[in-house]
């Protein structure tokens, strides 16, 4: 059956399975990805079916995981590495930024680095410190990397395969609070390009732009706004590097208002980049300044405070009201 209703976690698992079946050069690497199937079970059952040579439990060393993945890629493999949690990627940040991102350019294009770094990210699951962060801007800022984040099961299935097929390094941020959300996945569909934004809901009065975990919140906000007679469009950016500004521009030229929503701190966040670019592109169309809703300039708080920290329905709707009041 081509169309199935799957949680995002299972869709990602099916996607990895498909990639392992399709290309013998694809490898899965990471801490606990073997017998355990990863702490979120994204790699569940893969080692059993593809063996320890394809699905590799690694030592507990993030720089080692990414660094050896680079070496394997240079040998012709396509490693998909799992970083266990967002806050643990930093020991590997050096390898990702100084090596993975730059090696293709250093070699004047003569070698390719088809490495995917999967990072479960974001909050909302009541975790301890270092388990709920949103460091996407740190990666999107680095030339040589591509950064994407699916918001739903279908995108999870297709975007992961597209990332694996890409000859560029891709940082693949998985919204961990959406792992258990079910959605329809058509495994025989022809997916759109990996870095294309998607209009998730049509509207006329204002555009909400989001990606990953915040798309669902924005869709809920749009539904709530509808009840108050406001027509809100939601654009799921899907890719943070590159960003599909054309799709976003088309939406903003129609609605004339933009609110960007993400979990990461607003300060120097992706919302700042989006606001600046859209202001440049749509200066004469905008009826209000581009507003941003996101986390604070504070370390991700303890779990009992995360609902206050994370943008929720009310904060998004408040920004919608402020924009419409201009």
């Amino acid at each position, binding site marked *: 059956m081509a169309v199935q209703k799957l949680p995002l976690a299972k869709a990602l698992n099916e996607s990895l399975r498909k990639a392992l079946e399709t290309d013998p050069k694809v490898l899965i690497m990471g801490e606990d990805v073997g017998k355990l199937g990863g702490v979120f079970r994204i790699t569940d059952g893969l080692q059993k079916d593809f063996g320890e040579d394809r699905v590799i439990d690694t030592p507990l*060393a993030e720089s*080692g995981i990414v*660094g050896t993945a680079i070496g394997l890629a240079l040998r012709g493999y396509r490693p998909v590495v799992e970083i266990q949690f967002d806050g643990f990627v930093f020991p590997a940040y050096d390898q990702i930024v100084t090596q993975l991102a730059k090696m293709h350019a250093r070699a004047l294009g003569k070698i390719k680095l088809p490495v995917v770094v999967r990072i479960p990210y974001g909050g909302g699951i009541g975790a301890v410190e270092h388990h709920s962060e949103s460091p996407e801007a740190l990666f999107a800022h680095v030339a040589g990397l591509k950064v994407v984040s699916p918001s739903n099961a279908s995108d999870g299935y297709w975007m992961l395969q597209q990332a694996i097929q890409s000859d560029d390094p891709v940082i693949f941020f998985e919204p961990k609070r959406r792992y258990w959300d079910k959605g329809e996945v058509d495994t025989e569909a022809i997916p759109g390009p990996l870095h294309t934004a998607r209009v998730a809901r049509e509207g006329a009065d204002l555009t909400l732009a989001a990606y990953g975990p915040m798309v669902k919140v924005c869709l809920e906000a749009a539904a709530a706004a509808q009840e108050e007679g406001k027509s809100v469009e939601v654009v799921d950016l899907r890719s943070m590097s590159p960003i*599909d500004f054309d799709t976003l521009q088309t939406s903003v030229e129609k609605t004339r208002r933009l609110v960007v929503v993400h979990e990461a701190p607003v300060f120097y966040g992706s919302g700042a980049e989006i606001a600046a670019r859209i202001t440049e592109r749509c200066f004469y169309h905008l009826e209000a300044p581009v507003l941003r809703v996101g986390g604070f300039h504070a370390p991700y708080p303890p779990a009992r405070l995360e609902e206050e920290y994370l943008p929720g329905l009310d904060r998004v709707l408040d920004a919608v009201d402020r924009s419409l009041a201009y």
Partner: protein
Amino acid sequence: MTVESTAARKPRRSSKRASAAGKPQSSEPQLVQLLTPEGVRVEHPEYDIDLSADEMRGLYRDMVLTRRFDGEATALQRQGELGLWASLLGQEAAQIGSGRALRDDDYVFPTYREHGVAWCRGVDPTNLLGMFRGVNHGGWDPNTNNFHLYTIVIGSQTLHATGYAMGVAKDGADSAVIAYFGDGASSQGDVAESFTFSAVYNAPVVFFCQNNQWAISEPTEKQTRVPLYQRAQGFGFPGVRVDGNDVLACLAVTRSALERARRGEGPTLVEAFTYRMGAHTTSDDPTKYRHDDERQAWEAKDPIQRLRTYLETEGHADAAFFAALEEESDTLAKRVREAVRAMPDPQDMAMFDHIYADGHALVDEERAEFAAYQASFAEEGK
């Protein structure tokens, strides 16, 4: 700080300790040597090598030409033709010995000072100068000679070598991989992680540490409290210290380690105990941090002179050989000098090239914007 802790630290700061800066932690233990500094051939119970006179002349030629190339590059930096140069002066034996131990299908992951290894791999030496002149960040195709690009971040490449070696093993190939790094890099986490990964996966990789005694201005004792080759034991594979100024011993030990890797017996750490005769790079000044008598002591162990003495004593090379080599050196230096001066600056738009294999919308946009900006000057000029 308490009185006790001050007292406890005092001995480390004694003049005796200070004068030992840059000296080995232990006085050359188990140093594999096949040719003494005086040029006398000696035997070693575990490592031996049987080379023809022709092969030994070849090693000598490699070292002489590498030194000449290196000297020419240093001169070119002084003349403003290169922005920077990292000289290998004094490390010719470590590099030529290990480099000549490699097979064509082996793969090399260098740091940024492996000019002699590059020479052994058949990389045109002029290719090494692009990054130091500032026209690229490497630029050669690593797969042409199985010689990866120079890596500037210290120790990063040891993980790439390990991953590549894991791939070699997966492919069922019997080639080996060698990772070069220095004593300073041995302090980096990546080097420790590469030891862990290579041991766990039994990867066919040789870690070749050129312990040249100095990480810019910091002596080896600021990096380690044990001789570096002993680190390997804690990771579960053998470590061996070789006289890094003895090209024969470097060749024998590296060959043995590579063969071990090919047999599927996993990694080896080779510590080539040598000395950086010059500065770390042309931008530092060794007189600020080390005494000249140390350099003089190492000059007596010069890798090239000792092989020359041996070749002459044994009658393996005559005056005509040395004269011809001198001429070849001059020719090489001239070729390098001309090539550097003729090296074109990259085109303005080159900064947008090869950032991504599959393209990137923002790069395309910025390239177009910058091209239009540049073109506006051309129009003004009309």
